[in-house]
């Protein structure tokens, strides 16, 4: 059977991050507010996590609201009219209303209706995954400008008596606008998964178990030592692969933006990578906490607020988390 030749889309050769926006929960929650139910202390938490306070949102603020605020700032800073954004991707694990997606609502709120919009779940690697998708979809001609958001209200899925992860977690959203570029500015993504370690970190129960009275409200848990080993030594290999894929070395980096899981992970990670002293390391976790998919763009936002001279420099960003999943890429900072 014959048919007319179909058109297939192609896009620009290169993409870049045009801007970054951020929103954090409005309440700074110090360690002392959390230590009672876990029989702990401010010193214990600081020593093991580097966290001094974490930002958490009030009952009337949802992940979609944080996502909207971060998106508005990113769009404004990008200089791109909202109506030209035709793709919105939200990385999240904490949307307590499973459908509709946060992305569709945010697209409408910020003036990007009828952009293609969807949520995706790659846990703490979600932002890096979403950047990979935005980059690929724009270069394929499937979109022109993309809004990529990591948004979490993790305080809805914590257990105050849990000593493994709950006290690390915060609420926030970070957003970037991705668009075409004259020169390469988002290097190849190194990404993957290891479902054999699915039990190492994740929700402790299902919604069905909760509905049937077989469990309490599902909350996050982790096997700290297993996650720590994987997050530092296995992820150091992934980070090196991302540098190789970009065709650079750590000497070329201006910044290192790892997922803000735990300051001890960040410190040991940097040590394993033998980063030069000149590389500025994102340490937003100290006052924001671990915000899963939001943590890398939040760390980027803070980094550029504190070091505006780094704009235009190279940053290695790497996310890793429940799945297990990981994603890393070198980008030119907006």
């Amino acid at each position, binding site marked *: 059977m014959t048919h007319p030749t179909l058109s297939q889309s192609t896009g620009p050769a290169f993409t870049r991050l045009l801007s970054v926006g951020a929103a954090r929960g409005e309440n700074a929650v110090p360690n002392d507010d959390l230590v009672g139910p876990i029989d702990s202390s401010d010193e214990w938490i600081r020593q093991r996590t580097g966290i001094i306070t974490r930002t958490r949102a009030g009952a009337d603020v949802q992940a979609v609201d944080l996502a909207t605020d971060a998106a508005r700032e990113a769009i404004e800073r990008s200089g791109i009219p909202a109506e030209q954004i035709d793709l919105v991707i939200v990385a999240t694990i904490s949307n307590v209303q499973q459908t509709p997606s946060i992305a569709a609502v945010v697209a409408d709120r910020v003036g990007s209706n009828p952009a293609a919009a969807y949520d995706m779940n790659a846990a703490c690697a979600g932002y890096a995954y979403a950047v990979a998708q935005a980059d690929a979809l724009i270069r394929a001609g499937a979109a022109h400008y993309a809004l990529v958001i990591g948004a979490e209200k993790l305080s809805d899925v914590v257990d105050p008596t849990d000593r493994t992860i709950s006290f690390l977690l915060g609420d926030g959203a970070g957003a970037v606008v991705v668009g075409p570029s004259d020169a390469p500015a988002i290097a190849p993504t190194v990404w993957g998964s290891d479902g054999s370690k699915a039990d190492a970190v994740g929700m402790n129960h299902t919604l069905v178990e909760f509905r049937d009275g077989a469990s309490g409200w599902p909350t996050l848990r982790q*096997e*700290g*030592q297993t996650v*720590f*080993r994987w997050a*530092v030594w296995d992820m150091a290999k992934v980070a090196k692969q991302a540098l190789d894929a970009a065709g650079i070395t750590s000497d070329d980096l201006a910044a290192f933006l790892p997922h803000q899981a*735990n300051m*001890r992970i960040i410190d*040991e990670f940097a040590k394993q990578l033998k980063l030069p002293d000149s590389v500025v390391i994102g340490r937003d976790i100290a006052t924001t906490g671990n915000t899963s998919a939001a943590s890398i763009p939040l760390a980027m936002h803070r980094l550029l607020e504190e070091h505006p001279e780094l704009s235009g420099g190279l940053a290695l960003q790497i996310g890793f988390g429940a799945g297990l999943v990981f994603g890393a890429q070198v980008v030119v900072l907006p």
Partner: protein
Amino acid sequence: MAATREEVLGGLAELINDETGIATDTVELDKSFTDDLDIDSISMMTIVVNAEEKFDVKIPDEEVKNLKTVGDAVDFIVNAQA
């Protein structure tokens, strides 16, 4: 060639010193990592990974929780090398 028990103890003491600053001569076989040496779970894992490299052995995650004392770790490493 596999290290002797004394060599493993000495090497482990150096790794513990690197990670925590604890004097090598206080790292003795009957000392508990948590109760006597006050080594937390994250430092313990760092020591474990460095010990794997130093002694060319594998110490699985599920085994780490069984290593209560320095002697437990020395025994595990010596046996794993055999």
